[in-house]
């Protein structure tokens, strides 16, 4: 028999079995009911508009549109949306990004059984829920990612349009060393090319795009 009342939950994960597993966890609860499922971020957004669930449980890593971008888009359209992201722990920046995107909950995949229902109830009540291990790491005051002074120099020169060889000459370092710095920069900013790196760094305030000094402008 379908539950008439309860916290209405939309589950988003690209693995059907995981969605079934999560639905199974909610089945015996009187105050929680699964109202829909989606297999990727795009479907999640469309279903959110249609169902307006109370809480969304969403995998971060999905094909097509991932959980982070879907969270951003849903929250943009529905600022009150309550979203719990589900992920494997991959570092503090992951938590920060999820929370910055507007997620109210951060649930680790190896704690789902223990924490799913508690996280749904807490987030529905307006609180945040961060999985134990992740919360401990945040509480240990792990500083957010920053770029080293050298990385900032390299990034600034990329923004000015210099090639790797030119950057190496300017900073008096080998071209291979420049490439290593760029690899680190891309990793920290989570981008895949120079343009994205410059945009991301500028957005975060790491560098300034000063048009008169930028030969490519």
């Amino acid at each position, binding site marked *: 028999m379908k539950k008439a009342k309860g916290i209405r939950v939309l589950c988003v994960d690209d693995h*059907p*079995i995981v969605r079934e597993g999560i639905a199974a966890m909610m089945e015996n609860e009187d105050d929680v009911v699964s109202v829909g499922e989606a297999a990727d971020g795009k479907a999640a957004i469309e279903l959110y508009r249609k169902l307006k669930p109370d809480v969304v449980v969403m995998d971060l890593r999905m094909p097509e549109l991932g959980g982070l971008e879907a969270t951003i888009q849903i929250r943009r359209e529905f600022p009150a949306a309550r979203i719990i992201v589900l992920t494997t722990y991959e570092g503090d920046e992951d938590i920060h990004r999820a929370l910055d995107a507007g997620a109210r909950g951060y649930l680790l995949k*190896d704690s*789902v059984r223990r924490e799913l229902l508690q996280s749904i109830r807490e987030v529905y009540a307006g609180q945040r829920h961060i999985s134990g291990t992740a919360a401990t790491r945040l509480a240990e005051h792990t500083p957010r990612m920053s770029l080293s002074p050298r990385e900032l120099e390299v990034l600034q020169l990329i923004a000015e349009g210099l090639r790797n060889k030119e950057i190496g000459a300017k900073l008096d370092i080998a071209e291979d060393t420049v490439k290593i710095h760029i690899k680190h920069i891309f990793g920290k900013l989570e981008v895949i090319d120079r343009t994205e790196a410059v945009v991301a760094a500028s957005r975060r305030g790491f560098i300034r795009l000063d048009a008169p000094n930028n030969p490519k402008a």
Partner: protein
Amino acid sequence: MPESPPVPTEQRKIGVLVIDDHEGMREGINAMVNAQSDMTVLGQAGNGEEAIQQFRDLRPDISLLDWNLPVVQGEDVLRTLNAEIPKPRVIVMSALNDVTCIQRALSLGAQSYLHKDMLRRELLPAIRAVHEGQQYMPEEIAGLLDAGN
């Protein structure tokens, strides 16, 4: 000499050990397996170390093994299981369709390799086939192997 009565079906259920760090995945598999009359989940493990211990304690008929595990990787678990008993019946599950991983798993004695997206369709037939001593390779996986050779 009179024949002994047939063993009640209840006692012949295929005993399954589920090894995956994602609790949602384990719950989904548990629900699927336990809904069948011919199989049952004996236990679960969330990492490689637990998997080996559970295997030793439970001696399952079939182990469902996530290839990408924390603490001790799936590949290393499989090696250890091979050392525990000859030809343990293992079905490898993975989120990757990587030919190298598939080949590696099969070379270490896995009887089946299933991508996690195909579990709903392939898991139960795979469990039954491997329990019968057969190898079970979905078309898509077989195709990847052929293309990789």
